[in-house]
């Protein structure tokens, strides 16, 4: 026989990877546009400054990067983008949105038994280095505002965090900053626009 013994389809529709929501506990963080707004909210000025400095340092690492200022401003608004410190090997610049605020993740949780690098003890034994452990707060990080939704503070990965300044409840895994990566999309497919067919 010169034909297949069987030709069958299972017709599996590939499913998108399911988000694992789990039963993660929400923890408290504070959202402010500046350390001044933070201390005006009644918090320790020194702490407000320290958290702000931490977020500011993270900003160039985690902010989304764009190859042109126009593309960046299309997402974040005119005059709301700046040149990123990174360059490609060929000297090409990237652009990133300006930091519009910060999430102070550690202030509400002072006194909890979290000490980065310290030996874990007691009942809150999460995996070593897992900063999302209960009592550890959420990661302190810069926040941004998109062009079409000026009221909302968002993380570098576009997760909405708060509609204004003040305390927020968050699941730590939703706001994990991913450091040191630049993602671009749409770099394949340009020729498809000018050619009628791709397979043959």
């Amino acid at each position: 026989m010169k034909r297949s013994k069987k030709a069958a389809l299972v017709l599996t529709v590939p499913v998108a990877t399911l988000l694992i929501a789990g039963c993660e506990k929400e923890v408290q963080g504070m959202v402010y546009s500046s350390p001044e707004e933070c201390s005006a909210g009644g918090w320790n000025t020194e702490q407000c400054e320290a958290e702000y400095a931490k977020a500011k340092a993270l900003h160039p690492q985690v902010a989304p990067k764009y190859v042109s200022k126009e593309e960046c401003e299309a997402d974040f608004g005119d005059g709301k983008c700046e040149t990123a410190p990174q360059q490609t090997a060929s000297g090409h610049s990237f652009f990133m949105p300006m930091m519009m605020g910060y999430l102070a993740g550690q202030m509400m949780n002072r006194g909890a038994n979290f000490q980065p690098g310290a030996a874990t003890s007691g009942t809150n034994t999460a995996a070593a280095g897992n900063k999302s452990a209960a009592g550890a707060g959420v990661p302190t990080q810069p926040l941004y505002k998109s062009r079409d939704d000026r009221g909302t503070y968002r993380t570098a990965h576009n997760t909405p965090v708060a509609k204004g300044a003040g305390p927020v409840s968050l699941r730590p895994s939703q706001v994990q900053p991913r450091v040191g990566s630049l993602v671009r999309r749409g770099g394949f497919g340009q020729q498809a626009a000018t050619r009628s067919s791709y397979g043959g």
Partner: protein
Amino acid sequence: MKRISVAERPNWRTYAEEVGFNFHTFDGEPYWDETAYYQFSLQQVEDDLEAPTEELHQMVMDMVGDITRSEEMLTQLNIPRDYWSYVWNSWNGGEPHLYGRMDLVYSGTGPAKLLELNYDTPTSLFETGFFQWVWLEEQIRNGVLPARADQFNSLQDKLEQAFIELELSTPFFFTSVRDNAEDRGTVNYLMDIATQSGRNVHYIALEDIGVLTDAKGENPQFVDLDDHPIKGLFKLYPWEFMVREDFGRATLAANTQMVEPAWKMLLSNKGILPLLWSRYPDHPNLLPAFFETASSEPMAAGWVRKPLFSREGANVDLITGGGEEISAAGPYADGRYIRQAFQALPKFRDEHRNADTYAMVGSWVVGDRAAGICIREDATLITRDSSRFLPHIILD
């Protein structure tokens, strides 16, 4: 080789749509056409199509290594210089290939002649491996065809075997241009077979593929929409496009296994035809072919002009032996050309439409084995994307 009119199966369109074959009709014109079938003898299939397909495939594969080492040939094939070592590494690293299709002129007698190789992104795969197989089974069950009727079509068996044997990363991704139903149908079929072979597969639209780099913009990695690495990728998208697009350079450094591999860009290129002819002059399954140069004479009767990169007959010009000139429009007029001796496709009578029709045989290769055939029909001598697909049988 005969063309025989036959009644269509009732409700085949409904069935086609149930199995995801939603491109069976294009712009109101039939693409899948079962108002007739082609009948071959077993000898015609085995001696004239199967054996020459494997021989031609071997000839082509024997040339790849030489091309990767030849500045002259890489230049003739218009492979960008930045990719020469990438292609060389891909071949010398033994990167596996999955499938290809060669298009042949065959009339039932005399040697089949190679028109071109579609060795990077061949479509018509689902129609061949699945839909024409089901057509035969049903026509036998309906008593329209005798039970001993067969088909040269082991495509699905061989693809399934290939997905079992190939070393592929898990999960393995498949991609095609987002809004192309035909390409998506082909990819869905491959994903279905891979799933049946036990593979964990994911689809990502070509436009959604991301490149993740470190903070210095270096060490590119292809990623999916969750920024997870894509370590293995079947791409139904031509290499000659990819190497000229923004993410092309990322493929050079990214740790992603590509299927088809980069060395296939040497074979999906019509420049392989003059290279084959110069290595195997007067081979019975080859047509004379040459690169067109600035000093080439105006094209004479009995010749065909094809762009190095073109698909579905686009931008092909031909002058028949009798001097009739036929041209197909298309978007590939921006590159170099080859010329190939004209060999007319066999002409048949389409009783259903009361018109003449020309038939071309596509011959499939999976791994390194001949794996089946498909027939495309057109009212003209140039087979193009609108050409109809007809099933075939083997019956002596």
